[in-house]
């Protein structure tokens, strides 16, 4: 059953050097029309939305805060009109620190947004420039101040490590600053250089120096230790939070639950079908104009694939995969399906089984992809 909705805002005033999401320069784009199309897309999904129990909504991008106050208000109003809110517990918007104004934050609060996810990435001014980010630390401090004024229940920041020329000391300093600010939720991602990004082009020309696997591993190790020391619980490979502040929307993905994805290039998972929307704005909007869902590609997930995904998504969580829930969902005992693989992983001490959950060991967390591959059997 659908438990969440993801809404994609593919506009940015500045494109980051590492970003490979579906995004466009804000200028000269049909932003108003796009928002209307989003509303129409919600109408096309009306039946599924009616039957859903929408517990989380996540507005991501691109940058949702690239919208003007008026555009943001229209978007939030459309959400309220078309998406049932009675089960809603978490409503997140991504945000760029330099684009958040008090007015926009007040507006978000008015429409029930209760969680901000801010792309801070680093507190090091030089590295911010390397990444192509336009904000400064002052913007972050200001937003934290506004959040107090507007009573924002939850703030999260994204941090990145493994950045070009980043040193261990720079990483330590960024974390220290995050702890000093008492941010309740922190996502820490290692940089992945993807094709079709500025970083990718620089790297292939030999003009980008990355810290390398070993230093990156050290940074990850330091991250986990420091988070623990500062009172954060790790609940997923890259996510840390004070108890009870975990992102329910993120967990929905790792729990292998269903969600509707709306917007250009968005992904969704509904009635056992994973789909992705058209990325180009014209194609996306034209398809909606003729009353069709703007789906570019869809694929029904087989029972075997579902079990695989249950494993490689679920094992990302610190609590791991529940043996009981697996059996309940798929009608087979987990060890009956993956007995051989699990034995091997237990032997290598990459996973452990405790209290009826299978989870990654600390070592396993460093080499998660190696572990996940064991469960790709089809």
């Amino acid at each position: 059953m659908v438990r969440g909705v993801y809404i994609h805002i593919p506009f940015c005033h500045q494109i980051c050097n590492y970003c490979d999401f579906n995004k466009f320069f804000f200028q000269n784009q049909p932003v108003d029309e796009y928002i209307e199309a989003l509303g129409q897309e919600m109408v096309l999904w009306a039946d599924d939305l009616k039957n859903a129990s929408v517990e989380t909504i996540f507005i991501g991008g691109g940058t949702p805060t690239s919208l003007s106050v008026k555009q943001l208000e229209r978007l939030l109003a459309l959400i309220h009109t078309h998406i049932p809110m009675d089960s809603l517990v978490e409503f997140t918007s991504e945000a760029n620190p330099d684009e958040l104004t008090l007015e926009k934050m007040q507006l978000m609060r008015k429409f029930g947004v209760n969680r901000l996810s801010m792309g801070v990435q680093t507190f090091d001014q030089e590295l911010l420039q390397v990444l192509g980010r336009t904000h400064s630390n002052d913007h972050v401090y200001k937003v934290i101040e506004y959040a107090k004024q507007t009573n924002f229940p939850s703030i999260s920041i994204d941090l990145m490590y493994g950045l070009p020329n980043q040193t261990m000391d720079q990483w330590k300093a960024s974390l220290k600053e995050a702890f000093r600010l008492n941010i309740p939720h922190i996502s820490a991602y290692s940089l992945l250089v993807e094709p079709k990004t500025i970083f990718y082009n620089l790297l292939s020309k030999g003009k980008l120096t990355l810290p390398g696997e070993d230093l990156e591993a050290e940074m990850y190790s330091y991250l986990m230790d420091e988070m623990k020391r500062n009172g954060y619980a790790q609940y997923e490979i890259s996510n840390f939070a004070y108890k009870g502040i975990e992102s329910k929307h993120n967990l929905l993905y790792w729990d292998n639950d269903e969600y509707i994805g709306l917007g250009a290039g968005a992904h969704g998972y509904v009635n056992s079908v994973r789909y992705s929307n058209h990325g180009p704005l014209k194609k996306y909007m034209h398809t909606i104009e003729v009353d069709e869902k703007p789906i570019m590609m869809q694929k029904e997930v087989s029972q075997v694939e579902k079990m695989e995904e249950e494993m490689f998504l679920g094992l990302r969580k610190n609590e791991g995969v529940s043996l009981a829930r697996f059996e309940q969902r798929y009608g087979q005992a987990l060890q009956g399906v993956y007995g051989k693989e699990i034995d091997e992983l237990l032997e290598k001490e990459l996973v452990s089984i405790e209290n009826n959950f299978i989870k990654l060991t600390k070592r396993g967390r460093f080499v998660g992809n190696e572990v996940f591959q064991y469960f790709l059997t089809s």
Partner: protein
Amino acid sequence: MNHEERLARQKKIRNFSIIAHIDHGKSTLADRILEKTQTVTSREMQSQLLDSMDLERERGITIKLNAVQLTYTAKDGEEYIFHLIDTPGHVDFTYEVSRSLAACEGAILVVDAAQGIEAQTLANVYLALDNDLEILPVINKIDLPAADPERVKKEVEEVIGLDASEAVHASAKAGIGIEEILEQIVEKVPAPVGDPSAPLKALIFDSLFDPYRGVIVYIRIMEGTVKPGDKIKMMSSGKEFEVVETGVFTPKATMRSELTVGDVGFLTASMKHVGDSSVGDTITLASNPATEALPGYRKMNPMVFCGLYPIDNSKYVDLRDALEKLELNDSALEFEPETSQALGFGYRCGFLGLLHMEIIQERIEREFKIDLITTAPSVIYDVKLTSGETIKVDNPSMMPEVQKVDKIEEPYVKASIMVPEDYVGSVMELCQRKRGNFITMDYLSAARVNIIYEIPLSEIVYDFFDALKSSTKGYASFDYELIGYKESKLVKMDILLNSEKVDALSFIVHKDFAYERGKVIVEKLKALIPRQQFEVPVQAAIGQKIVARSTIKSIGKNVLAKCYGGDISRKRKLLEKQKEGKKRMKQVGSVEVPQEAFMAVLKMDEPNK
């Protein structure tokens, strides 16, 4: 046809090959001749028509022989029948060259107008002269800015001793000089001699297995006539068959009611095994047999050996089938079952040379879809044991313990290297490093030199070609012939991964180079083997003694951090890709080893890196 008609036709037949160095334009010239004789319409014309195997067209080399019948109306108004027999240019395939030359009366010698004669061409010209062929020199690529036809003609005269005064100046690419070449073929290449009414003597120069027709035997008729329905007899085995079809290639297989003296074509006779028609054998008629067979060929023995193992052990039987099928059309290929502790079940295969080895390996992977691990190539060592017994060792891991060895002899080749004068120093330096003994050096012209060295074959097999190419900027050409065995101070170097000996990585090395090479190889392996889930020591050992070591680190971090905005399919793809990459590797003990690592020993001698 009656006897007189056959004789009249025979006078109009011209059989010839083209001899050329790779890249000197042989295939292009063949294409032009086919066009000019309108054997193929331009619509059918596909560049490099004679090279029909995909691999041949991609690599620009000819592997298997082709024989095409063409008709040419000469300036004298008469119509002539040409048979063009294609020959491989590479040194590995000397055997096949000698086969095709035996089916001809003439050969076109194509020499690049800028580059001059190359070592391999020279070797093939000598083969042609041994076969008493009329040789027509053609100076090709005269339209290139660097062309110097007069210098090259002088080289032909001085180096080979041919009269080059009437050599055609041509550009196969631009279509210059083609007609002149065709006229010279008519004038200078002798018509076949032989009696069409005499007992049949047909030389088998190649054969091919076709699943529907059985063996297709490529023949040149020397004496007599053969037609469908005839009972034929293989002169070496005495086996008899009934001819089903006779025909020629135009270049498509085209049926003919008979083949007679001078014809180069094919016959089928419901033969189930290629072994029934061994290349070099003579076919005669069962009812009216010839008394004497034609001189056959010397069978070439494989010089280079390596292990071929399926990455997926369950493909072992498929690999055997693939080798058997390839063997049908490649008499030089040899193989026998072999077991490696590290790699499981596979085959020890013998090849004519490195290129031959690469081609077979590539064909198995492409045509039979079997992913392979190839062990580093080895030569055959003659090992005299302290017990007095002498054994042959073609697999380094089978080399007996040092204590049991009295002496080891290894094959040596005479290498001739033609190179512009400026590179003499680098060539000599390379040969010296490859344990070569300098024999002599001749000036071919003021600026070109032929250097002769005796070098252990194993050094050639390793990376000599590549090293020569890079140290002479590609200007050197190279040929070699086996000259026999010489004693050398050799030792077996074992490689241990994670403290376990990997037999497939053992190699034989000269004692004086052992320590240095041990150091290089452990570093190479460290670079080639990806990080594993645990630390892996890499050691090189002679007997019990470790001479070098390095360590492959364990994986520091491999976990996808990003969320990808709920794009789970992308996560799956990434994991699948990583998993797929592992399938190309062989599990040796607990270590995943990629194919390249087994060839690391070939890359040891890279002084500049």
